[in-house]
């Protein structure tokens, strides 16, 4: 019998400060540990506790994984203290992730916001690996300010590709920013996809996901084609501890990616 509560030991190889409150940790698990885009890991600092995070690195890279973490509470405070050489625990992969094979042949529209750009990065790598199997690929991203823009250099590199339509906006600009200013829904009117069939993926803070979902509906995207990365209090990660229930589902086991038609009728989904 397997012990589902046990973490695998991993070494912190590198810590990158992305913004004053966001760091990316490059980790090397001591045992084989792979994941699919959209799946998550329970990341623990020995003694300080566990919290769920979606990796931000390319899932095809098997030896290491990156996780990008915003400092918001007890566990993430401890995580932000980590230095190269430190030992951490990883438990997973958990959840279902994005059904990429269902996306084949379709237009793909990604709406990312804030720290949600981190898991979207994993998804983007996954999509790029099988780029010729999708039709149009559109990415709209938003952040509070240019400082909060994760992986900005990498994103600017992707913007030069001719097989993707990418645009970004910030709620508040500064001298370094010459792009659009406004919330992400303000740059969703020029999207050229087949809205009746497009697979729309939304990942970001709850408030942004809510308004992006409403905007997508307005544009004619079907609820069953809106894929939301839900954030709930996930403790065990496999549908037993009870914390992350949404209606008849557990966010951890049945998600964390849900189509909007699955969860739209349940209260508190945006909180």
């Amino acid at each position, binding site marked *: 019998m397997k012990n589902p509560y046990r973490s695998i030991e991993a070494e912190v190889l590198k810590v990158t400060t992305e913004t004053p409150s966001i760091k990316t940790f490059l980790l090397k698990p001591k045992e084989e540990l792979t994941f699919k885009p959209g799946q998550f890991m329970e990341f623990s600092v020995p003694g300080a506790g566990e919290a769920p995070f979606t990796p931000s690195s390319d899932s095809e890279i098997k030896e290491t994984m990156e996780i990008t973490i915003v400092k918001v509470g007890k566990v993430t405070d401890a995580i932000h203290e980590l230095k190269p050489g430190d030992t951490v625990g990883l438990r997973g992969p958990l959840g279902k992730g994005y059904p990429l094979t269902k996306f084949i042949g379709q237009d793909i529209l990604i709406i990312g916001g804030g720290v949600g750009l981190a898991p979207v990065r994993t998804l983007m790598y996954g999509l790029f690996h099988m780029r010729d199997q999708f039709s149009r690929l559109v990415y709209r991203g938003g952040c509070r300010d240019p400082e909060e823009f994760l992986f900005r250099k990498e994103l600017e590199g992707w913007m030069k590709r001719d097989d993707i339509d990418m645009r970004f906006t910030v709620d508040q600009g500064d001298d370094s920013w010459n792009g659009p200013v406004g919330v992400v829904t303000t740059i969703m009117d020029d999207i050229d996809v087949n809205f009746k069939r497009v697979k729309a993926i939304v990942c970001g803070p709850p408030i942004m996901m809510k308004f992006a979902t409403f905007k997508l509906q307005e544009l004619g995207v079907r609820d069953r084609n809106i894929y939301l990365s839900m954030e*709930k209090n996930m403790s065990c990660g496999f549908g037993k501890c009870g914390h992350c*229930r949404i209606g008849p589902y557990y966010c951890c086991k049945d998600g964390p990616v849900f189509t909007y038609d699955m969860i739209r009728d349940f209260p508190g989904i945006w909180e």
Partner: protein
Amino acid sequence: MLFIKRGNLDQLLESLRGDYRVYVPRTMGDGTGYSLLGESDTDYEIGAIRSFDPLKSFYFLGREKVAEDFKPDILRDDKPPCIVGAKACDLKGFKILDFVFIDDEFGDPTYMKARKEGLIISADCTGVGETCFCTAIGIDPWPDSEYDINLSPVDDGFIVTTGSDKGLDLVESNKNLFVEATDPQKKAIDQNRSTVQSEVTRKAKKKRIPAADRLKRIIEKQYESDIWKDASEDCVECGACNTICPTCHCYLLYDQKANGKLARFRIWDSCMIHDFARVAGGENPRDRLWMRFRNRFEKKFNFFPEVLNEIGCTGCGRCTAACPGKIDIREVLARLEI
């Protein structure tokens, strides 16, 4: 059908102590509570109704170390539990707990081990508690499954029924302790069962609990009702209803470092507590007490019927007995009637 004298049951339990941790009900106030059977102890009491403590306590411990350092070991290696005198409502609780904890990929190892290796010697109810309402949930006050052997109290002893291969083996290997039951004894248990059943039903009827098969629909219909706010007014968020419930299974994982060792504990949690569903970023889908109160009913009377076709309540009435705010689950259900 077989009969076992109380003195012979004492002997049987004594012999089981070699292979099991034998837990017996002992008189506590006006009921019974479970504790370990010591050497030559005979001071147990097959209670008239369910014990104060729920059966889950022996399978899914209130606090248990589930992982140490990064070792893959399964930690609990003590003898499996043998529970004596378990009642039907508690056994029905296994329908929920097994569904939650037993699975191939992420099964809870210590729960599964205790369920597989444990022994259950159940018993018919011979009385009706103040808060009992099992029959309103469709459960009879005598065990019909999930036991290895069942005891039906009669004069000087018990009629014994076997419910599993393990139970058959146990009877087979202790043949000398049993004799054939007599017709009057068999009659006596039928008599007791029907008396207790009609008494629970009579009491439940007085509370006007809606029919069991309508509860799921009622929760859906009344989802936005003001009843939740009103009914939860006396709740003090102590979580007693959760800890005492034979089907409440929620837990939290808690890490600690002691003596240079990393330990992960699985601890009972309560969905009535404010931060139960709160995420680190601060969002809380059930920020208000009445939402958490409603959630508890939704989980039992809507979620489990939806995903498992079973009601997540066994009518044991412990939550009502334990509530310092005197919230009566039967009365809340009655108020929700449509």
